[in-house]
């Protein structure tokens, strides 16, 4: 079998002072991730002579005549699949006045796309956050 993980990550950031006391900055990060087990190649092996495992179940499923055969796993083209996209974006600004009072406003976006949910089911989400505060420096 072949177990493979692969990830691409791209990020960019801009910081700009529009005025001496007025700053703005933005940041974005984009990630693509893959991971899976492929090329399963099991030879047929099934128990013989066991009262329970060596049971003829062809009447139930002709394609799987033995109750237990590891070659049945070859039917999976991918196993333990992981496939996701993630975007983190933020933009913020701050302004500082002469009297020590500052204004700050930030926006955050988190996007996670779980394209092949596995045992934990769909873990994707899109969330946003707006944060603002006033500061006083002394």
């Amino acid at each position, binding site marked *: 079998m072949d177990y493979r993980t*692969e990830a691409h990550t791209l990020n960019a950031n801009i910081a700009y002072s529009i005025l001496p006391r007025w700053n703005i900055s933005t940041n974005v990060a984009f990630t693509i991730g893959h991971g899976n087990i492929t090329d399963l190649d099991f030879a047929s092996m099934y*128990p013989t002579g066991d009262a329970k495992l060596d049971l003829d179940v062809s009447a139930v499923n002709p394609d799987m005549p033995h109750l237990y055969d590891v070659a049945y796993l070859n039917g999976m083209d991918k196993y333990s699949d992981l496939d996701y996209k993630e975007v983190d974006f933020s933009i913020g600004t701050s302004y500082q006045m002469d009297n020590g009072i500052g204004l700050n406003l930030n926006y955050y976006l988190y996007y996670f796309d779980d394209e092949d949910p596995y045992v934990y089911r769909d873990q994707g989400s899109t969330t946003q956050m707006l944060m603002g505060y006033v500061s006083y420096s002394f």
Partner: protein
Amino acid sequence: MRKITVFILTAIFALAIAGAGVVCAEKDGKWYSGKLEVGATAIPEKLDSRESGAKGGPEYNSLFDKRWTSYLGGNIEAMRDGFAFSANALYRDVYEQDYSGMVSLKRVINFKTDYSRFYHRLDHDYMDNLNAHIFPPASTGWKNWGSSPDLAGISGGKTIGSANVYHTDLAADKFFGIARAEWKNKVDFNIPLLPGLKLTFNHRFEERKGDKQVMSNSKCLACHIVSDSQNIHETTNDYSPKASLRIGTLAMEFSYMHREFDTRNEDMAIVYNGLKGKELFMNRLQYDNTTGELPFSRTPDSTKDSFKGKIRWDLNAHNTFTANYIYSQNTNQTVDGAYDILMGKFGDEIDLHSNIVNAKFHSKVNRAFSFNIFGRYQDLNNDSVDIKKNVRTNPPGAPGGAVTLAEGYIDHSGWSYFEEEESRPSGYDSNAYLVGTDLTWRITRGLKFKFGYEFQREKRDNYQHHHVPRSTKEHRLSLASDWHVNHSLKFDFDYRFEYVDDPYVLKDAECTPDGSYGVYSGLPAGLYDVERAYAPAIYDERTAARSNMPEYVHEIMVKSHWHPVQSLSTNFHVKYRYAKNSDVDGRDWKQNMVMAGLGGVYMPVKDLVLSAGYTYMYDSYDSQYCIAIYDG
């Protein structure tokens, strides 16, 4: 502990605010500064229940559970007449808090404290992949038994044979998460009368509280996985005094650390498949031959004590000798109770001991040439775990005679037993030594060449019991160079080669040495034979070695840094690793890994900074895969 923490941090912050009030009257002195922050956080749309196990941004952020949360922060710094003080605080939510503070009295006494708390959303494994071999009567698909652990649902045509792998989730609607808090304190005493002496005391407190998903597992529960929610409350306290002394060219440091890990976790126990009143089967799940609930997901209380001594001796301006010794002892303290059979050694604590010695000699021969010679010795000695089993004898007629189901599972009170003891020595018991050298040659002002070689040998005490190699020898070779082409361009090259003989393998990991699939003849006859086990039909047939550790490793890395003009800086790096293990049966184990990235920072004007980066990672393993056989 939390109340004490909050009280102390509140007191520190109150002192900070009070101090601020005092100094405000003396603002012209400017020996203080500070900031107060007041605001709020808004979440347009809360996480819904489906997203409670979300990955990405919300995974470590509790704010997404509420539409509005406060933002209260502040900091203050003051310094006057050798007295320095600072405090920082940020409160956003009961799970999102950060505080820190510092006090310095003429640098004789320095105190630092730091507290933080956050929430981690945990996964919920719905176990949808565990529905193998459950056939509904009309073969309409896999059967999910949902939250009903009732064995009565598994009967007749629903189970063809008895090879069942299924699950029960007793907390199917539950969402899991752990709040983690850490509080670190450090105080230094610099003794004025002894300028080379410094005394330090560190304390670290960690607390984990919340709920997590836990799964049962035992002889039969491996096929019927039962999941539940466990309430978690674990605390760790580290106490670390340290003394540092420098006398002339000799520097010494001695430290001791005592760690206490305490759990007040919910005691988890389960009646297998809801078999209340059916003790004829329950008591065969464990070798204690008792009936009733079976414990699972138990974490023992433990302690750790470690002693560390370090010396550094500057022989002269060119030669330095350093060495350290570390002794540590870990003790598993939970050894009493009704479930000793699961916990191991009866009545005694289980100790793990280790000794480590490191030594290094550094010499700078001249401006062009320097070298290091180093060595390391380590041994690990752990207590063996003693197991006592209360084994039932065969019922009349078994294994050779005909035994009916009713005869096989008769009331346990009519059985006879014999006691069987087994000692399991630790697979970690070992000793290892390492010797090596590295040489640095500065060929020209801009070109530096490095060569390194290490040899390590590890010997394992209980290799026969664990079916692993007796010893492993590792040779590691490294070649590297730093090349400053000019003031704006720099390259780093690095190559590593490793050869391991014999690599760590499990000698009896799979069925046949040639890697083909052997014929499984099934379990021995005598369905109700107490001695009926996976051996010899399965375990004893496994004679082939497998491993996921390398025998050969090649690793090459190139890094560059280029800043053609003052406003532009770029970097690039690539790393390739190839590892292979041919010392296994069947197909070789292989690894191919590539990591690469590039980035840049550009500042076209004074007030604008642009930066960007890209990273690529590829990691691939080729291995033979062994499928276990479950034969309930």
